[in-house]
């Protein structure tokens, strides 16, 4: 099943930790993530539901392509990392 990992920098602000999920697309996966950790949602997505400008999500080592609709496919063995971009903060 797809497994989601979080940057430690996010853990500093809101509760979130490694989570095993189900689903075929990232939107399925993130729906479960934010159901489990509701406060994390606004830290990762903006109010339009898009990935924040300076956040990145890797699915099996590749950066997310659809940052607004989150339709990228995931697989049963996918490893998903929610990270900070190097841009966007000092």
């Amino acid at each position: 099943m797809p497994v989601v990992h979080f940057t430690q920098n996010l853990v500093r602000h809101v509760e979130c930790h490694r989570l095993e999920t189900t689903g075929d697309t990232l939107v399925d996966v993130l729906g479960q993530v934010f159901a489990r950790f509701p406060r994390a949602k606004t830290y990762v997505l903006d109010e339009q539901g898009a990935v924040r400008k300076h956040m990145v999500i890797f699915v099996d080592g590749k950066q997310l392509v659809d940052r607004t609709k989150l339709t990228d496919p995931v697989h049963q063995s996918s490893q998903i990392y929610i990270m900070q971009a190097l841009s966007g903060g000092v």
Partner: protein
Amino acid sequence: MDSLLYLGTKKGLFVLRRGENGRYIIQERAFLGDKVVYVHPDSRNGFVYAALDHGHFGVKLHRFQPDSGWKEITTPAFPPKPDGFVDKNPHTGQEVSWTVQLIWSLARGGADQPGVLWAGTIPGGLFRTADYGDSWQLVDSLWHHPTRQSWFGGGMDLPGIHSICVDPRDSRRVVIGISCAGVWLTEDSGQTWVTRAKGMRAAYMPPEQADQELVQDPHCIVQCPSAPTTYWCQHHNGIFKSTDGAENWVEITPAGVSAFGFAVAVHPQDPNVAWFVPAIKDEKRYPEGGRVIVSRTRDGGEHFDVLHRGLPQSDAYDLVYRHALAVDDDGQVLAFGSTTGSLWVSANQGDDWELVNAHFPPIFAVQFG
């Protein structure tokens, strides 16, 4: 004299109090390492609101309550952008994202509205809460105003609301300042709006457009609480004053050492007394000659005192942002903080200044509370 002093800085929130020896000392540090772009103590109930900008993780809002401490609360947020709706500045072609990029200002409602706060943001959305920030509503009438797409950024890429003056006589009457869309007034708690920048002048526009209200860049607007028909404005290219409730503005010339600056404070009981922290105008933005001074008028702008005792008079390159100058409720104690992390306090209306600390992070906001 017993007021606390709140600093919003690039690396956290600092709360200072005046010690027995008269010096301000740090009483509390919060959000260390995080950017606190605005802080707003609410004298109605002892709450304090802090607006944070986490960069990667977006903007967030926190509330302090005396009985329970700090807690993250709901951040103002835009509704979903309608599918297919194109929101572009017609002049620049720049697309406006319906996401709050900065909470640039906060203001409490009147005494008759205990839970009401207003929040001004970049990209130009005004929000209102009636429940102490637990939920926020976009002020649709302003966001959907036919002129809004033509507003433009002043310094920032997108326009923003940085000044919110709630009239002490009537809480429904609110004047706001927008960089860049001039000055706006509502008299019905935000249901309808009119521009109120008549008399302002924009030196950065072609001459035939210089007096247009929507192109004005008011850096900061304050209202005198005891004489609320008087407003002072530190504008991008001048100092302006209104004595008729923002109906008309008059440019103050000459405006002391320099007409450029960001901050302005008005004496709470005397509308003729106001303070500014000038700098060399826009393309430079540091104090003339490396001398930090405060400019004060006591006669409504006829004359300006240059106040410098206790302030560095050589090789000082401190710039003071629009929310980083404050006066206490008595009109006696002033404080200002700079981009290079210096904080100065005066106990005598600016005649003498004392350096509190030269090593704070860059200071965005200074408030008494």
